């Protein structure tokens, strides 16, 4: 196999990889948008942020 043929083969692989990646991210993006639309009515799960040092000191009994 000549160097040119090998180069063309690897270039084709690279293009296939790039197109596959683009396709994957495009489908993921669309699915995520659909999921968000459907989940809009649901309440988001509760989230408790890490208490700061000031909050922690206030909570402690004197």
């Amino acid at each position, binding site marked *: 196999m000549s160097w040119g043929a090998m180069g063309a083969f690897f270039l084709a692989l690279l293009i296939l990889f790039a197109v*596959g990646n683009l396709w994957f991210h495009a489908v993921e993006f669309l699915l995520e948008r659909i999921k968000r639309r459907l989940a809009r009515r649901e309440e988001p799960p509760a*989230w*408790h942020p*890490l*208490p700061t040092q000031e909050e922690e000191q206030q909570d402690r009994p004197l």
Partner: protein
Amino acid sequence: MGLFSKLFKGPEIDMEKSDANAKKMRLLFNQVVENGDDYRLIFGYTEDVARFNYGFVHGSKTKIGNLIVGWSESSQTIVVVPTVPDLSGCGDPTYYRRSEILKAYRNKYPTDAFIIYPDHKGYIGINACDWLDDESLYVYVSQEEALAAFTDFFIHRFATK
């Protein structure tokens, strides 16, 4: 010689960072769990593997969920609190009381996870390691002794078979 011995020694644990994260885990846990100090803590995680097939692109995706896992020997209860790798916050706790669960066992294959079935509808598989280096995915904490204690508790006093 010095360089090679360092290379072969492998990654070393930053105990200062690990201790700071252990304190944060305790703060978060005690914030959402009543009498949190009655529980010992380890860091655990869940792995959700999903296969996808988008036409000519197919493969699998793994979602990792970080957990603060507390256990109480006296009440035979495991409490699981979802969190994030940087421990900036946590979700609501889920209680698994031995008297109320359907079954619990230590898995062997494909991973040695701690499996709890609260009912027939679903289950939770808790994975845990002594220490995980990847801070972007897991909480950075060294917990060799605590994990050994949790494993002993789970196998001998919590598992149902």
